[in-house]
């Protein structure tokens, strides 16, 4: 029987993160994402030259909404650099540093602090780097340009650029040769528009990674999944504006939900917390892999291990 194979005309942009010493950086490797010419893992239909990556998340202040992680990581949760070092040991492909402590409602740490911390992290670990601000568009406009400057030559991925602050963040990325994450709240039309606005400033679409925001549960997951899938289909049929890699902040969305917090005593029918909580992060990540995710940001070492194995299997078709 004849195989029914889709013929795609488009290709997802390929993007490099990180820079080694011969190229002006200090990372141990350069990693690539994107380049797909088919839907995820349909190796018989097209190419998937770069496997999706697992980034390990490090927060610069204990994530108060994640009690399970605070408990499990208690030996290093207050020490950003030790935590970062751990991520390297856990086998993550890259590091995702979040500067939560700079949020004005939190510690309101300064621009100088952000610059110094990033410099220290660069000296501590050699993985390619993603740096995310403090989820406050105005404050991010202050701290991220400093971060971009301090990491010049390292080709980091800088985020989040939103419709309210993309100009400053894009300019910082352009001036220092970085790429940006363009974030829109579960809105495919805004996502396309933001990519246009950012590329209008001179940063090529090939240096944008989209974040449609990530739903960790229920409707949010489904919305996000279908938007990612729709974007990928458009990209593969030739719409270059949305043919960019996609990132998912899995940890951020899964560790704050009830299923990843409530103990067995509180919810006797839900089973033991540890495996349930890790299972949630793993399940969420595995789902987004099928929607076309190129970078999955995870936090728990067990999730990192399992998802890396899953990706390996899906890329080779071989069970370990």
């Amino acid at each position: 029987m004849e195989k029914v194979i889709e013929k795609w005309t488009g290709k997802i942009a390929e993007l490099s993160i990180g820079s080694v010493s011969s190229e002006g950086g200090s990372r141990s490797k350069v990693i690539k994402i994107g380049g797909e010419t088919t839907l995820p893992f349909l190796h018989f239909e097209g190419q998937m030259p770069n496997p999706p990556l697992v980034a390990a998340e490090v927060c610069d202040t204990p994530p108060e909404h994640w009690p399970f992680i605070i408990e499990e990581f208690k030996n290093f949760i207050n020490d950003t650099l030790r935590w970062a070092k751990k991520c390297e040991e856990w086998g993550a492909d890259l590091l995702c540093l979040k500067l939560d402590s700079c949020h004005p409602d939190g510690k309101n740490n300064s621009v100088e602090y952000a610059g110094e911390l990033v410099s220290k992290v660069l000296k501590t670990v050699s993985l390619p780097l993603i740096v995310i601000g403090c989820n406050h568009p105005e404050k991010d406009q202050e701290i991220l340009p400093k971060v971009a400057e301090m990491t010049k030559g390292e080709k980091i991925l800088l985020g989040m650029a939103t419709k309210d602050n993309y100009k400053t963040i894009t300019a910082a990325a352009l001036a220092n040769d970085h790429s940006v994450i363009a974030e829109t709240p579960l809105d495919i039309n805004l996502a396309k528009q933001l990519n246009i606005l950012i590329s209008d400033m001179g940063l090529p679409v090939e240096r944008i990674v989209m974040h449609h925001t990530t739903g960790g549960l229920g409707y949010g997951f489904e919305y996000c999944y279908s938007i990612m899938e729709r974007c990928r289909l458009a990209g593969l049929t030739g719409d270059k504006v949305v043919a960019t890699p996609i990132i998912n902040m899995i940890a951020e969305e899964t560790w704050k939900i009830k299923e990843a917090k409530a103990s067995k005593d509180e919810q006797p029918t839900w089973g033991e917390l540890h495996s349930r909580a890790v299972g949630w992060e793993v399940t969420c990540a595995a789902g987004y892999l099928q929607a076309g995710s190129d970078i999955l940001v995870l936090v728990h070492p067990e999730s990192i291990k399992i998802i890396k194995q899953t990706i390996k299997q899906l890329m080779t078709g071989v069970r370990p």
Partner: protein
Amino acid sequence: MLIIGEKINGMFKNVREAIQTKNKSILQDIAKKQLEASAGVLDVNVGPASSEPLKDMQWMIETIREVTNVPLAIDTTKLDVMDKGLELSGEGAFLNSINGEEEKMDKFLPLAKKYNTKIIALTINKTGIPITPEGRVEIAANIVAKVMEHGIDTSGLYIDPVILPVNVAMEHSAAVLEALKQCPLLCDPPPKTILGLSNVSQGTNYRSLIDRTFLVMALASGLDAAIVNPLDKDLVDAMITAELLLGKNIYCDSFLDAYRRK
């Protein structure tokens, strides 16, 4: 929708002069402008006044190839000119055109096979252009059968149900729209559909308005490609908007700009 730019045609005065004086830059400029305006294929026609069509076609293609490798639609009724044109244009070329006359198909289709080209086929036969959609589709069916007989993949066949000027043949436009809907049902893989659009407005006072209105209606009837003047910005805007409303592209506030970046 695939736009085939119609501007490189010896029937236009500037092109005729460029051919006569061998002025490369005029021709190359028209080619580049059409590509910037979203054309995906360039039609090449030496025009009715050419006394040496074979040499003129060769010069035109070589001149265009100095600035772009985009696919060309070789637009001629002469077999030797078609042969040379397809040979020189290389990958992705269109044979423009055949119609439902059997002898002509048997003459031209071997060229399509030889150079692996796409084919534009008009629903005209010896008795002319049928007034009804059924008449058009019947000719299209004969064309499909002939194309298959020659061992050519029908997915590269573009059926043109032939639109006539609205000021002399009013009843044809609705028939064309209906034929556009029926042609894809003829075989599997389905043939594509195409129109030589500007014919619809020949001799009227509102050419651009009539062209773009009919184009939008044709797109809603499933049109895949059209030979048009891509430098008519209103026409291209209307096409982009129609495709958006048909759900073929993702909306964003700058959707016109987004399409043109493709």
